[in-house]
């Protein structure tokens, strides 16, 4: 039986003028999968940059890191820009049976 354990995920901000109070908020998928919106399914979670000088220029990449049968495994995540600048939907591309820690 394959043992899958996603230990962590990393979201990298590629471009942002960092401010002293910069923060990254993680939210429920429904924060970006809005009613009548375009982003809908298979969203693992939502990400929003806060206190960024130019929030429209934020670029995000994501990778899920985990262990499968004792070996490290990295799963690139799809990042979908939300309707509001600086918000992103991170797709649920890691195995369904994975458990975070």
């Amino acid at each position: 039986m394959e043992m899958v354990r996603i230990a962590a995920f990393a979201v990298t901000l590629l471009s942002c003028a960092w401010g002293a109070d910069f923060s990254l908020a993680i939210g429920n998928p429904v924060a970006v999968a809005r009613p009548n919106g375009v982003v809908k399914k298979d969203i693992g979670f939502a990400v929003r940059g806060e206190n960024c000088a130019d929030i429209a220029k934020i670029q995000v990449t994501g990778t899920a890191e985990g262990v499968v049968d004792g070996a490290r495994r990295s799963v690139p995540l799809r990042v979908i820009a939300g309707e509001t600048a600086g918000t992103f939907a991170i797709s649920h591309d890691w195995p369904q049976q994975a458990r975070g820690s």
Partner: protein
Amino acid sequence: MNQPKDKPPIGPTEPGDLPLVKAPDSIWMSIEATLDAKPEPRRIGMFRWQWVAASLAVIGVLAWYAMRPKAPAWRVSTLEGSPSVTKIKVGDWLQTDASSRARITVGDIGTVDVEPNTRVRLVAASPTEHRLTLARGEISATVSAPPRLFLVDTPASTAVDLGCAYKIKTDESGDGVLRVTSGWVSLEWKGRESLVPAGADCRTRSRTGPGTPYFADAPKALQEALAAFDFRGGGPDALGTVLNQARVRDTLTLWHLLSRVDPADRVRVFNRMVDLVPLPSGVSREKALQLDPATLKSWREELAWKW
């Protein structure tokens, strides 16, 4: 002077004095020829052009029949037991017994699993509307489609898919519950709307329609007080319990209550929401209490980051 007898008299003649004149033979011959002649048969058939027109009409009817739009039908497969149908057409009912489950393939936009003891009917299957009626029982829908394309009517609500996965069950009177597992569902009934996000439930009741949504992990006391407020006339006491029990993510419930409570209680709800989550910039207290639609929408979108 006498006139010859075979000639007509010349000049005025007294009545009764007209002589008999023998008809010429040529007249009799003409009459006899006419009587002897066989009558020409009357044309009772159709002219050639009429046959051509009739043939074209028949061909047209046959071509229409062969090429007519097929009645929309969705495929039905068995998950458990033995549902007797393999497809369901518009107007058809599908009913499962206590040991049967079936899966309906909803065009090319998703699936609906029909649980035991359930009765559903396909109402519409057009490019602009996919619609089921759930008379009783439970279904699980997983749909990937533009908002408001897939709808499920129950006796006390219409579940409008906004891009989501959900379960909905009801009895024949309309008492039931919706549980959303992905995306959003709008539960609508006679002008009342409940927006239910993933992780939340919403009850329905006959003659009342959808209640107020709440997260499935909300405190039991909140859930019970909310049911009393929505359906049993719980009033300010039930509302007080809801407000006291509410957590940050229960602002989903409070956001809906804001427009459902009496004006006198609206400030209580607003104040509790602001206690839990500070009012975001761009959302004014005055406009929120006036139930300004744009303000409420903006506030909900901001609150969703806490849900």
